[in-house]
């Protein structure tokens, strides 16, 4: 309880504090410190959950169960490492004149608020609050995306705002429908939207309403997940925003959105019981994976490319959760984790590379190994990891997903095969010359602080070779919960 | 298990080959001359040539490597072994199990590779040209020869030459259409392999189309002698194999030492006839252009394959 309070309060307070001092010299340190504190708090929370199991607090408005606690930890962890990365990165941006004092303040405070909102969205038990938090997280990041005030970043932010706003509006309608169904099944009132209660009476909810509701919710939150064809905001926002934001968008926000979809899927499954939600997600996922793969093959901007790769991977997760079943769900959760870790790591490395090269156009970034071996190897290994090369964790989840699909949905595997092949060719074919080969750039005098990159990659590597038992039990409980039991 | 008679037959066979091979050469040359209305050289001319060459000192190119010097001996050794395993007189040969039909083909290939490498060693224009052509003929003739032997071994259910000849010779007479086709193919192959007209002309020199002569252009003295002798042995071996496969009668069976006494005249007779036939073929055919050689050998190859298929179809 106290732990949860800390987890939620720290970022909020940090955000307020940074709204005051965010322009100071040491603001970056404060930002990192707050994130660290939040991370420690979440670790504490995790320990509590591991020891005492799930619990709900504050009149059931908030709750912690295996599914969200592992996402909370992940969120705070990546939030922390990203803050670490952002500290030197944003300072350099400041020196380059791309940032100003006020903008730094905006950046820092909004960063914390963004984290806070995601944590609320994860831990709340109330679908309404979930919606509110998601919307708030969007609003926070809109300002972060447009922080450079360039034409492109404004356009990206505008699209981000309008598209996600509309999407989230659909989600609200879906929520209202759920509430309607809940009223009918278990009476209205304050508690009607509590997920735990809804999950108990899911089988009583009217399938007609729930199916309609799920359609709205899937589309609404799916917009934020970045499912094709409602993904269009994602590449722009990732490419034009500051790199730390790209990292947390890809690594965290998409996960949270997918988490929301999963919560809704559990209810819809319970009510409908005909597996239609799963099939819808499978369809969405497949379309997303294939389309994203082909998008990948014609990119010139490095951040944009990796944004599309995020779309591809979100599609893969959606596909996995759509398949359902213990193995696929397990794989999906694992994929969530490793994708968050690896993709943010990649954005860190890319950030340094682009900053050094002064461009995000891949043709102009060459021979990173000569510029700085750490950046070069970080990017190379990260790319290989995200492409599903063992022994990195992404491979583990793709292994499970593909092999399961081969028996569950044989017709789908050729598409996945093509998509993964095209994605591999596209991404690796562009990254290889960036890392290897000759370059015009001068070698970096001192190697940039890339500890976060290698920590993330190390963790991803570990997850590929060895998953600690407690983490495993945790995944399995979560998987069972998603499977609706 | 090696019987005395067997050993005897083995030694006899090799000795006979070594002795008779030049004679066969002389015989063929004599007949060619007669058929072409020339005054024929003596039957013993090849022996004289060899003797002369052995007496001469051998001149070696400065940059000739050891490979160049060892090659003639290896070729000679290979051919000697080839004559040793070809069932000329008897089928009870201790060396027979050392190399069956396939190994025999390999043996010829080994010799060819060495002579070609030796030809390339000095690095003259003609040498490398000859090597290329020799290998060209080789890779077309080898599979054909192999297929011929296969169709025989499919009939006799064995790849050991001795066993093939035994079965063919001492079973009740039967007509094998496959063998007939294979025989034609074999004739083609042996013409090519022994550098006879229409593929190559052993009698000429300094022709842009020469093959065998170009190979050995740099050789002289004893080395040349060995090579010539080896060539004669090769012709002998091919003739013996051909005769053994397609006219296997008269070859002595295992454990019948006396039969060998009859086998020798039979062999000589058959060889004589074969030599005449070869001379006739060489006379009535004109040497073909080099570019047509592949077609010629491809025909042989196809015939051999057809022989196999015929056997599979008719079981005979």
């Amino acid at each position, binding site marked *: 309880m106290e732990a949860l309070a800390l987890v939620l309060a720290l970022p909020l307070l940090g955000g307020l504090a940074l709204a005051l001092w965010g322009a100071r010299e040491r603001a970056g340190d404060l930002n990192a410190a707050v994130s660290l504190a939040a991370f420690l708090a979440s670790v504490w929370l995790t320990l509590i959950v591991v020891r005492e199991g799930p619990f709900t607090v504050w009149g059931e408005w908030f709750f912690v169960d295996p599914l969200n606690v592992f996402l909370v930890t992940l969120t705070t962890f990546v939030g922390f490492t990203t803050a670490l990365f952002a500290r030197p990165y944003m300072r350099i941006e400041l020196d380059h004149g791309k940032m100003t004092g006020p903008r730094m303040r905006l950046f820092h405070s909004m960063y914390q608020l963004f984290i806070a909102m995601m944590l609320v969205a994860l831990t709340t038990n109330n679908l309404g609050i979930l919606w509110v938090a998601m919307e708030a997280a969007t609003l926070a990041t809109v300002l972060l995306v447009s922080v450079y005030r360039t034409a492109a970043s404004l356009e990206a932010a505008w699209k981000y705002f309008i598209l996600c706003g509309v999407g989230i509006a659909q989600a609200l309608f879906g929520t209202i429908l759920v509430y309607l169904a809940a009223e009918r099944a278990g009476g209205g009132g304050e508690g009607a939207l509590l997920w735990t209660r809804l999950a108990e009476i899911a089988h009583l909810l009217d399938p007609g309403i729930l199916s309609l509701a799920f359609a*709205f919710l899937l589309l609404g939150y799916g917009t934020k997940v970045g499912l*094709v064809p409602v993904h269009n905001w994602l590449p722009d926002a990732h490419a034009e925003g500051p790199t730390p934001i790209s990292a947390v968008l890809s690594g965290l926000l998409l996960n949270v959105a997918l988490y929301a979809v999963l919560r809704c899927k559990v209810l819809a499954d319970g009510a409908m019981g005909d597996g239609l939600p799963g099939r819808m997600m499978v369809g969405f996922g497949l379309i997303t994976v294939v389309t994203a793969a082909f998008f990948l093959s014609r990119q010139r901007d490095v951040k944009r490319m990796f944004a599309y790769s995020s779309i591809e991977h979100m599609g893969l997760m959606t596909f996995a959760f759509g398949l359902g079943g213990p193995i696929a769900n397990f794989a999906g959760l694992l994929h969530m984790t490793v994708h968050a870790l690896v993709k943010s790591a990649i954005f860190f490395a890319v950030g340094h590379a682009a900053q050094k090269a002064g461009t995000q156009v891949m043709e102009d970034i060459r021979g990173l190994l000569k510029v700085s071996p750490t950046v070069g190897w970080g990017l190379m290994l990260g790319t290989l990891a995200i492409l599903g090369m*063992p022994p990195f964790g992404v491979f583990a989840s793709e292994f499970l997903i593909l092999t399961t699909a081969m028996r569950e949905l044989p017709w789908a595997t050729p598409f996945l095969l093509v998509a993964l092949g095209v994605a591999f060719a596209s991404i690796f074919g562009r990254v290889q010359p960036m890392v290897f080969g000759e370059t015009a750039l001068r070698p970096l005098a001192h190697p940039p602080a890339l500890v976060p990159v290698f920590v993330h990659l190390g963790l991803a590597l570990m997850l590929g070779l060895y998953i600690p038992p407690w983490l495993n039990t945790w995944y399995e409980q979560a998987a069972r919960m998603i499977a609706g039991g | 298990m090696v019987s005395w008679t067997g050993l005897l037959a083995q030694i006899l066979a090799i000795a006979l080959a070594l002795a008779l091979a030049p004679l066969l050469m002389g015989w063929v040359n004599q007949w060619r001359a007669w058929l072409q209305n020339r005054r024929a050289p003596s039957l013993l001319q090849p022996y004289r040539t060899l003797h002369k060459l052995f007496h001469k000192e051998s001149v070696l190119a400065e940059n000739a490597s050891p490979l160049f010097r060892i090659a003639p001996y290896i070729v000679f050794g290979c051919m000697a072994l080839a004559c040793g395993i070809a069932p000329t007189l008897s089928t009870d040969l201790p060396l027979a199990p050392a190399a069956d039909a396939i190994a025999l083909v390999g043996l010829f290939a080994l010799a060819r590779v060495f002579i070609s490498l030796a030809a390339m060693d000095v690095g003259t224009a003609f040498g490398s040209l000859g090597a290329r052509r020799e290998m060209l003929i080789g*890779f077309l003739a080898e599979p054909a020869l192999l297929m011929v032997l*296969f169709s025989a071994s499919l009939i006799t259910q064995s790849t050991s030459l001795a066993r093939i000849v035994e079965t063919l010779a001492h079973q009740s007479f039967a007509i094998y259409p496959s063998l007939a086709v294979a025989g034609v193919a074999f004739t083609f192959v042996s013409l090519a392999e022994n550098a006879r007209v229409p593929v190559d002309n052993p009698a000429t020199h300094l022709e842009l189309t020469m093959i065998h002569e170009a190979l050995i252009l740099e050789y002289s003295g004893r080395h040349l002698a060995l090579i010539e002798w080896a060539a004669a042995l090769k012709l002998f071996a091919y003739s013996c194999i051909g005769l053994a496969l397609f006219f296997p009668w008269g070859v002595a069976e295992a454990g019948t030492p006396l039969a060998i006494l009859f086998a020798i005249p039979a062999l000589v007779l058959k060889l004589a006839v074969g030599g005449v036939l070869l001379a006739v073929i060489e006379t009535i055919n004109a040497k073909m252009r080099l*570019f047509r050689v592949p077609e010629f050998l491809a025909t042989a190859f196809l015939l051999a394959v057809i022989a196999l298929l015929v056997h599979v179809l008719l079981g005979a």
Partner: protein
Amino acid sequence: MMLLDWLLVVIAGWLALGVAGIPALRNTGVVARLLFPAGAFLALVLAGLALAALFTEPQTAVLALGLPTLPFHLRLDGLSAFFLLVIGAAGAGISLFAAGYFRQGEGTPPGLMCLEYHLFLASMALVVLADDAYAFMVAWETMALSSFFLVTANHRVPAIRSAGFLYLLVAHVGALAILLTFGVLQAGTGDYTFANMRAQSLSPLWASVAFLLATVGFGAKAGVLPLHVWLPEAHPAAPSPVSALMSAVMLKTAIYGLLRVVFDLAGTQLWWWGVVLLGLGLATALFGVIYSAVQSDMKRLLAYSSIENIGLLFVGMGLAVLFHAYAMSALAALALTATLFHVASHACFKSLLFLATGSVLHATGERSLGKLGGLIRRMPWVAALSLVGVLASSGLPPFSGFVAEWLLLQSFLFTTGLPNSFLNMLVPVVAAAIALVAALAGYVMVKFYGVIFLGQPREPHLAHAHPASPLERAGLVWLGAGCVLLGLFPVQVIGVIDPVTQVLLGAGVGETVRANGWLFLSPTSLGRASYGPLVFLLVVAFAVALTAWLVHRLYHGRLRRSAPWDCGFPAQTARMQDSAEGFGQPIREIFNPVFRMTRELPTPFDAAPKYRVTIEDPFWHGLYLPVARLTERLARLVGRLQQGRIAIYLLYSFLTLIVLLGVVRW
């Protein structure tokens, strides 16, 4: 401790050596004089253990790695032991050579090379030990990855980069196919151990799906048509020891995988699988040998020859499947024995030849055959040993290559027993084609050896070519000895192969061979077929010695050196020798339709007449570029989705909403 544990110790040792390379990143001395020899020693130990393991019961182990529900399962049975033996034996020689080969300034620092190299070795060993899909895939992809980094060691060169990219791409796609194979084999049980896959009995349909996927996946790694394009690019690009390791050992892991899946995991075999393998193998072998005959880069030539040999291996496997599908186990065993024998012998001679090209490269800095020649006088060791390799590679008795060919042809001779007339017609043709391939291989090898080592140097600076370093020689000697011994003692070698066929087919030719005596190799009966390489060699050698002695005794040994005669042609220059292109000319003429050639023929009136011929892979233009173009077009199409107008984006979302509502409502 069990053998398996010791093997793991060796593998761990390799990894340790690799990691030890990092501190000594640029210290060539330590890496070359210490780490690589140590690696070679470990490889020897590995080979020894594998040899012992061949004759023991299968052993299993479970590591605390991998997925929680699926830790790494390892299993050491006859098949894996045999391939471990190959890895160890070849690896020892190659590591020894590499110790003398790697130097500073090849792009990647030697320490990193050491890490990648030993990671490569270890992953290959793990591939053949893995006993569950996950461990297998992890080892498999690690193998691909480490070899990729080794190939692109000199990544400053764009051509090398793109070669590496192509290689990794094909490897990855193949790996995905293998992944799906396992997805089929686990039959929806969610248990990915091979034990479980063995237990499952698949319907013919699913089994065939698995087989086809496996053929694609492992074929991509082995370089079977039409997935071979990476091979002639990657092998020349890599440093020679790496090319040797890839060609000699890594390609074999693909053979291992296919054997494992088809004979061990799939459970059933259908006869047409054999036909598929036969067809693929035959096409690959012919294509490979014909193309290698017209190459003018020595490593490309060898790469294509590797393709040819892979084709032969596939043919052998195809025969084995055929026989096994018709329950003729003894014959299947014979065919499989031939295949495995060829695996071993190819590992020896191909690595030997690749390493030789490495020494030549170091000595002369030339890779193009057109600029070499006469090296037998500058580097006699390399020349002598490559001669062994060349003879073995062109399948000549009494060397290793011939035995494999002999066994293969022998197994062909029995196919008339098949209860399927179509096959009975087909097989002789295949046999003929195999014979043709073998003969062509001889042609290729004469070209290879003659142009590099014989004749006169085609470039002046070849005069300063320095001989190979002692360590390089040691490696070459080791592998050359392999070629000779494999060739001379086939009976004993088959005794080693026998357990493998016993494992896979429950039958073997071992005891019949042993029954027929150690001197003569005879898979069925002495009367039927026999081959005695030792006798063969002795007789020839004896004949040579005797002749030499007699000639010198009866006549004289007088010898005079003088300028080459060459029909008294006055002006001799090295340029008058046959060039590599010239040597390829007959092949180009005969197999003209197969090639995709562009030629510039000089006219008699050219002031500076120049002849140029470039030969491209038809599959590249016929298959790969179209696929690439198709992808491009699709990507262009998909790109339209993202065309910038926010209104359109809203429209998407709107339509999607309508569709979704439609789905849930109706």
